[in-house]
Structure formats: C-alpha cells, structure tokens
C-alpha cells in the first residue's frame, strides 16, 4: 500500500517530486568528474587470478612480455631489395623510439640474432646490421635469411614477400596508442609496400577504445530514436521527454553510484546506459494504460491513480524480475560481471521508484487539451493497432492446438540449433571483415606463422640443468614437430632450435649436423657460445637460468580461444606417448584468452541459469500460483530457445556480447508475460466475462503497451545494426528479434496455452 501512497503523494505534490528528483540526479552527477575507465578486457580477470599469476611468473622466468604487436610488411615483388630493406630498417628504428615499446627486444631484420659461419668464422650478430646496397650483398642477405630455419615463417614468409616486425610492449602500455603511432610511422613511407599492424594489444585496446566511443555515440542516438518513436505513439512531446528523463535519471543515478564507489567503468559496465534505457521502456505500460483510463474518465488525477493501481503490481514485479535477473550476477566470481549485475539491478530499482513518483508527478503538468487530442486513438475497438493485436491473439485463442503444435516443432528445431552452439571468443572477429585490424591479422596469418602466441613450458621434475640433456632436447624437438601438425599452428621455436643451429654452423654448415648433439657438455657449451654474443633475451626467452624449464613458443594463426585448447591437447597426448620427467604447462596470451573465455563466459552462463530459476520463483510469488508461473514462463523460455537456436544454426559463436545479452533477454522477455497474465487475471476478476473475451481484451489493451514497448525497443536498437563493430550488430539484432519475438509469443502463444490448459489452470480459481 505504501507504493500507492507514493503515487498519491506525487500527484498531490508534483513540483516537490520533480525538484527532488532533479536534486538527487545532480548529486549523483557530481561524481562524474571522478570517472575512471578501464578498457582492457583482460581486467575482467583480476590480477590475482591463477592464470594471470602464472602468466606473470612465466613472463618473469623467461623475460617475456605480456603484449606484442606484429607489424607486417608486404611487397608483391619480394622483400629483398635495397629500397624495401631500407624502409624496414627505418621503420624498425622509428618504432624503437616509441615510448612504451620494449625497444631492446624488438625483433626485425636489423635486430634479430643470426648465427652464421663465414670462412671458418662463427658469427652471432643481428641479421641485417647494414642495409645491403648491391647485388652481391643482397644475394648474401637472401641466403642468410632463408638458410636459418628459425626465421622461416617468423620474420620471412616462404614466398619471400612478407616480413614481420615483432614489437613487445612494456607493461601497462596502451596497445592502441602505440599501434596508432606505428601507423603514423608507416604512413610516411612511400612505395608499393603494404603494411599491417596486428596483435592482441591492438585488437583489445582498439576495441576497448572504440566501444567507449560507440557507447557515447550510440546511447544518445538510441535515446533520440526512442524519443521520436514515442512521440509518434503518444503525440505529446512533453510526455515523451518525461519517459526519456526517467531513463536518463536512472542512468545518472546508477553510473554516479558506481563512480562514487570507486569502480572504474569497465567495458561491461559501459553498456549499462543502453541496457537501462531498454529497461526504462517498461514505464510505457503506465503511459499506455493512462491514455486508456484518461479517455474513459476524463480526469487526470483519477486516471493516474487508477492507472497505477492497475499496472502497479505488474510493473513492480517486472522490475523485481529484471532486478533479480541481473542481481544474481552479484554472486558470480568475476568482479566486472558482479559490478555490471549490481549496476543494472540498482538502475532498475531506481527506474521503478521514478515510475511511481516522477512519472505520475510529470503527468500533472500536461495540459488536459493535449491529452484529449493524444488519447483519441486509444480505443480498443477503433484503434488499428489494437485491432491487429486482437486478430493475433484470436489466432492463438481459436486455433490453440495448431499454435502450440507449431511452437513444439520450432522448439525441437531450436534445441538442435542450440546443440550446435560453440562457446568461443575471438576478439579480432569483433571487427568487421574489412576493418584494418582484421585485415592486418588475416594478411599476416596468411603469410607468416601467426599473430597469436602461446607458450608450452616444459618443467623438469628433477635436477637443475635437466634441459641441457640431449634426451630433453630431443623430447622438446619431438613435441614441437607434434604441435606443428595442428593446422593453425604456424611456427614453433625453442632452445633446441638454437642448439641445432649452432651445431650445424660450427660444423661448416653441414646439414648432417642439423641435429641435437650427443652430449650434455656440447649442448651447454653451444648455448654458452651463443650467449657470448646474442642478446640476453634470446636465451632468456626460451630457457630459465637454472635450465630447469624450457619455453616453447607456439605461434598460432587464429585468435580463437579453442586453438590453444588443441595445442594443450596435443601436448598432453605427446606427453602420454613419450614419458619423460618433464611437465608441460601452457601459458601466454593465447592461453590467457582460453581461460578468459572459459571463466567469463561460463560465469555468465552460470548467472543466466541462476537468473532463470530466480525469475521463475518471482513468477510463482507474483501469481501466487505455480501453474500460472509455468504458463507465463513459456514465452520467455521459448523466445530464448528460438534465438539461441538461430545462433546455433548460423554458426555464430557464443561469445562475450551474446552472453551478456542472455541476462538482459531474460529480464526483458519475462516482462511481457507478467503484464499479460496479471492484467488478464485482473480483467477476469473485474468483468466476469468469458475467458476468450478477456484474452482478446488483454491482447488489445495491455497488449498494445506490450507491442509499443517492443517496437520502441526494437526501433532504438536497430540503429546498432549499423555499428562498425560486430558485437554491436549482434547486440542490435539480438535485442530487436528478442523484443519482437517475445511480444509475439506473449500475444499469440500465451492465449493459445491458456486456452488449451484452462481446465488445469482454472481448476481452483
């Protein structure tokens, strides 16, 4: 009863309520300057998570970098010419001057260590100390480049047309900023060469930055579209703006709270405004009913209070269901997921408080003449929209059996589709086919060993220096050959490759010696010899100082999280077939992505399942009936199944954006059923008419609110279909289809179910 008094209070003191709302909003707004952002999806897992701790440990043990940018240089007529090589030298020099680049370990022609023998002299030095100037020098360079198997597919493609510059980043550098600087350097180079900038930090940080930008652009556009569509529906600018303000206020409140609590705005929480805007459309039902009531009563104040009495309960329960669906995320293990859930749950509650205070108050300021004009069309027998809805509901009501049968068939097809869903995340694919980030990744992966990098760390269980044993060396070599059989693995390299190279070079480049030597001493001395002139990082990167651990680099041609899983499986298989006291443990960014994928996505799936249960419980409470809860649950489950069925068939992967949407879809799709069933039951109790009549009335009157809600929603989100990043297109398509589907489900399928099951449903009632 308290809520009703809030409505009455608001109607009695509209000015006070509006002023109070504005003041509260301003207070939350004062927090905005303190805003911190964190665009790095990596931080979805805390720095203390096992995978990050382990990766840091591996990075520390082998002097590796968390992040690496790969710059591809392609010349259709071949890389080995004075002009192109000169450019490569220039570009490398310039890149090494960029702040945030770990210059000492940039690998490119002028910096990568080569081991050669010339006239009996062993040479360990950078591959290209000076740019070759004449034919003879070019020929010698060509030979150096292709003779060393360590280079093939790493810094030179088989066809000699593509090279790569590997640019490791210092901890904490922004990949997008550095990528932009590199692009600036590349832009200055003239000629026929093509340049590509790829790598996880590029896609990750570019995506993070773009996402924020898009949110800043998209949220207002979606808001404007909603405003416009509302205006078309209600023909009153003032009320349309009111609805909009309702959403804006809750956004300001919840974002303000988030900032005040000291949380950075993460990529996930950056989506909150759009989500809240979507959830705010629920107040549409208040407007819808108000217009009908006003037309009947002609008195504003009475209409408002009656409206709130009629829709108050469903609006409260839909809010509760939405808040609960997001609220369960608070119990998940990943912090940004929790923050996101809490943020939306808070926003939803704020929205409802505003629905019961701010919105009724604002109604009091509307001129009655305006309302008269606007509500003219609101007659369920005359209005064309209402007529259509009656027809739709009629189809479900009169041909209930067929409707349910069709539904069942669709259900089965969806289940088949769902069984085909692949859980995977590939950030490069978040960019469109022709986006430069994706093109760069594709081109480099086509020509070279791969832009994605994973490690397999071999750890000796026994003594120090174990790695230096010829049998460990051969074991690692065999493992490399085994992993290289995987189609998406483009290159592997390890300490063994250096040992073999030196063995061969010391023996006058005799191919017979391109093998692991027979004694531990020889291995040790070769590596020592190598370390006498190579960069310290050359050896550090592949073996730890105590020679207890070796690090095998695995370059992968795709960012699919699943690819690293295959590498791990291959390593496990190799270990099973080749027993040796060496443990094999995966690491690196590819491994991180695999774990991220698993943890974040499964956390969301877990949250989704919990939300499903919680929403059902709320439905039971709302209808005080298990049976009605099941019936109203059907459109929701059905909508979700259908969408995921389509996702399964389309081959689209279940990735981060889709997983986030699952919870939203749940919170939203259940709303319609709650409205429909609540109002139907009210109608039945009030009118004492037949069930069919009541169903048709519900479809035509609150159904109009449902349809309006769905259309409003869908139109706003259809804007997202034009976004440059695929997750936004996914989000747009998902929401548009979800809203329309769940509205249709509610209006056609729910009556059909109710008609078919009326015996069972009304047994006690």
């Amino acid at each position: 009863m308290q809520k009703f008094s809030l409505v009455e209070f608001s109607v009695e003191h509209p000015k006070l309520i509006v002023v109070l709302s504005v003041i509260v909003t301003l207070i939350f707004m004062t927090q905005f300057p303190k805003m911190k952002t964190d665009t790095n999806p990596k931080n979805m897992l805390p720095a203390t998570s096992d995978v990050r701790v382990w990766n840091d440990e591996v990075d520390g043990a082998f002097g590796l970098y968390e992040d690496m940018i790969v710059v591809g240089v392609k010349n259709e007529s071949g890389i080995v010419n004075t002009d192109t090589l000169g450019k490569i030298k220039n570009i490398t020099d310039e890149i090494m001057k960029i702040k945030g680049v770990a210059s000492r370990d940039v690998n490119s022609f002028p910096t990568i260590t080569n081991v050669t023998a010339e006239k009996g002299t062993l040479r360990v030095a950078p591959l290209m100390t000076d740019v070759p100037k004449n034919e003879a020098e070019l020929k010698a360079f060509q030979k150096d480049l292709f003779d060393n198997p360590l280079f093939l597919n790493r810094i030179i493609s088989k066809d000699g047309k593509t090279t790569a510059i590997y640019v490791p980043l210092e901890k904490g550098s922004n990949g997008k900023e550095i990528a932009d600087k590199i692009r600036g350097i590349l832009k200055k180079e003239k000629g026929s060469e093509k340049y590509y900038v790829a790598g996880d930090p590029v896609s990750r940080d570019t995506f993070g930055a773009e996402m924020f930008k898009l949110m800043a652009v998209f949220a207002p556009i979606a808001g404007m579209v909603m405003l416009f569509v509302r205006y078309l529906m209600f023909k009153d600018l003032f009320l349309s703006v009111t609805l909009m303000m309702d959403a804006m206020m809750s956004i300001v409140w919840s974002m303000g709270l988030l900032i005040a609590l000291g949380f950075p705005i993460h990529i996930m929480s950056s989506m909150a405004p759009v989500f809240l805007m979507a959830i705010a459309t629920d107040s549409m039902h208040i407007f819808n009913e108000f217009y009908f009531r006003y037309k009947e009563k002609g008195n504003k104040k009475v209409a408002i209070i009656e409206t709130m009495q009629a829709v108050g309960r469903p609006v409260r329960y839909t809010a509760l269901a939405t808040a609960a669906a997001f609220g369960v995320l608070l119990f998940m293990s990943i912090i940004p997921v929790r923050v996101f859930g809490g943020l939306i749950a808070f926003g939803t509650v704020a929205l409802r408080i505003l629905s019961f205070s701010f919105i009724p108050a604002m109604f009091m300021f509307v001129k009655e003449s305006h309302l008269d004009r606007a509500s003219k069309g609101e007659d369920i027998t005359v209005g064309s929209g209402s007529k259509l809805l009656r027809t739709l509901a009629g189809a479900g009501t009169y041909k209930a059996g067929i409707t349910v049968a069709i539904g069942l068939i669709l259900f089965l097809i969806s289940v088949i589709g769902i069984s085909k869903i692949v859980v995977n995340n590939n950030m490069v694919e978040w960019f469109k086919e022709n986006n430069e980030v994706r093109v760069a990744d594709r081109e480099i992966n086509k020509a070279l060993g791969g832009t994605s990098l994973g490690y397999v760390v071999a750890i000796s269980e026994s003594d120090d220096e174990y790695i230096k044993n010829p049998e460990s060396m051969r074991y690692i070599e065999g493992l490399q050959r085994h992993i290289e059989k995987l189609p998406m693995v483009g290159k592997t390299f390890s300490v063994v490759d250096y040992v073999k190279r030196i063995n061969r070079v010391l023996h006058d480049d005799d191919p017979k010696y391109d093998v692991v030597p027979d004694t531990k001493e020889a291995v040790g001395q070769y590596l020592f010899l190598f370390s006498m002139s190579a960069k310290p990082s050359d050896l550090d990167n592949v073996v730890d100082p105590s020679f207890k651990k070796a690090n095998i680099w695995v370059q992968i041609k795709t960012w699919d999280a699943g690819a690293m899983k295959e590498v791990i499986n291959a390593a496990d298989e190799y270990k099973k077939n080749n027993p040796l006291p060496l443990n094999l443990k995966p690491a690196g960014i590819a491994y991180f992505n695999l774990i991220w994928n698993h943890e974040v996505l499964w956390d969301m799936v877990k949250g989704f399942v919990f939300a499903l249960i919680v929403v059902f419980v709320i439905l039971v409470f709302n209808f005080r009936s298990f049976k009605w809860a099941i019936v109203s649950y059907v459109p929701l489950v059905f909508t979700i199944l259908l969408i995921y069925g389509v996702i399964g068939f389309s081959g689209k992967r279940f990735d981060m954006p889709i997983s986030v949407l699952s919870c939203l879809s749940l919170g939203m799709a259940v709303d319609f059923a709650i409205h429909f069933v609540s109002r139907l039951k009210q109608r039945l109790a009030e009118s004492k008419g037949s069930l069919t009549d009541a169903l048709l009335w519900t479809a035509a009157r609150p159904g109009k609110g449902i349809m309006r809600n769905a259309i409003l929603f869908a139109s706003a989100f259809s804007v997202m279909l034009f976004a440059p990043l695929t997750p936004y297109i996914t989000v747009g398509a998902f929401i548009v289809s979800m809203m329309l589907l769940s509205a249709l489900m509610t209006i056609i399928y729910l009556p059909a179910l109710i008609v078919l099951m009326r015996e069972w449903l009304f047994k006690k009632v």
Partner: protein
Amino acid sequence: MARYLMVLLIMLLPIEALAISAEDVVKKSQAAFHYQGKDFKARVVMKLISKGGAERVRELTMLRKNYGESGGDQKFFMYFFQPADVKDMTFMVYKYPAKDDDRWLFVPAINMVRRIAAQDKTSSFVGSDFTYEDVSGRDIEDDTHTIIKEEKLGENDCYVIKSAPKRGDVDYSYKLSWIDKIHFLPIKEEYYDRKGELYKVFTADEIKDVKGFPTITKRQMKNLQSGHTTEVAYIKSDYNIGIEDSLFSERFLKQPLKKWIE
C-alpha cells in the same frame, strides 16, 4: 713510484681541475680503468641476476697484457670455470684501437677452436649486462665528450662527463660518467636510450688498492628496463706478473698452463 705520482697528482689537482679538458679526463680514465699496469690477472665471479631474482653464475680467470701505450693494442685470455659444463672453455681476444677485434673460442666438447666475428662490440659479454666494450673499453674517438659539471658523489669528487657516440652504432644515445678526480676511475655511469630515458646504470661498488693501482674489485650493471642485473667481483687480482706472449696462442687456448689460469 705510483703512490708518489698519486701524491703529486693530488697536489696538482686544484690547478688541474681548472684546466683539464673532457678529453683529458676520459683519457686518464681509460688508462686507469682498462690499461693499468703492464699486465693484469683476475679471478672473476659474475652473477647474472634476472628480474625474478634467478641467478646464473660465470666464473673465469681473465688475463690481460698491454702492447704499447694506453689506448693501444691489448690481448685478453679468459678461462672459464663456471658454469660447470663450460669448464675448460677458453676465449681469446686481440684488441686493436679503431679496428674490429680478433676473437677465438675453444669448444672442449668438440675439441675445436673457432674464430668468432666481433662486428658487434655492443653485444652482451657472456650473457651479462656488460657489453664487450664495457669489458675492454671503447675507443675515445668514437664519442664526443663534454664536462657537464663537477660534483661530489658519496665520498668522491667527480667530473661528470657526457659522452655522445658520433655514429649510431650503439644502443644508447649518450652516457654520463662520474669520474673520480683522484684516481680517475668511473664511480657511476648512466646510459640513456634513444628515447632519452635512463636505462642502464653502472656502479663501482668497491675500489681497492692492488699493488698500488686503484682497482674496481666490485661493480654492477643494472638494466632498468629489463630488470636484469650483473654483479662482478674480482676475488683475486694482480698486476705486472710477467705474462708471456706465447700464452695468447691457439695451442694454449686448447691447453692453458695451470700457473696462468689458477
């Protein structure tokens, strides 16, 4: 004699300090740091310490003989004791000013002496943070030297010399050296990378008098960017021991005489 000279030097210091040029300071420093005595022998323990604290140890005997004046030719002979699997490995360098060194290495596992190209003087010395140039000295003419200030560093009154390479053949854009005004040994050196950021720091942590020659017996080089550090200690050192020319030959690389390496 040396001590006598030193006293004389100290007496001359105030006048010297006013008149001395950057080149003079660097020349004196080179003589004190790399050319002291006729010959020199040290048992060296090098600790290569990674960012994570893991250590690799190198232990070697280093012999050096001067041929001619300070800044002239030198020959080096190194015998490795550690790591264990490189025991008996030897390394020999003929150093010439303004010309690439000649280097030879003996690999006992395959009983083979190999010449090693020495094009890149700035490459790491046996995997440490020191470069070959740090070990044997850089040609004075390769850099432009200026005295940027004089200051006290701890107990030592120092000249601060800025040395900027004339050619971009090294990985730093300039170096600052704090050179002691008395014995002319560098107390500290700072290396600045091409972005102008400090990335490597050398410090002389212990200076002892060996046969009248002030000698840096403990030093370290710290790479601030990689977090890698190398500590070097001379556990034994001696000057003017009469090293024979014949030591510096392929024959002795394979089978060095015990008296020299221990």
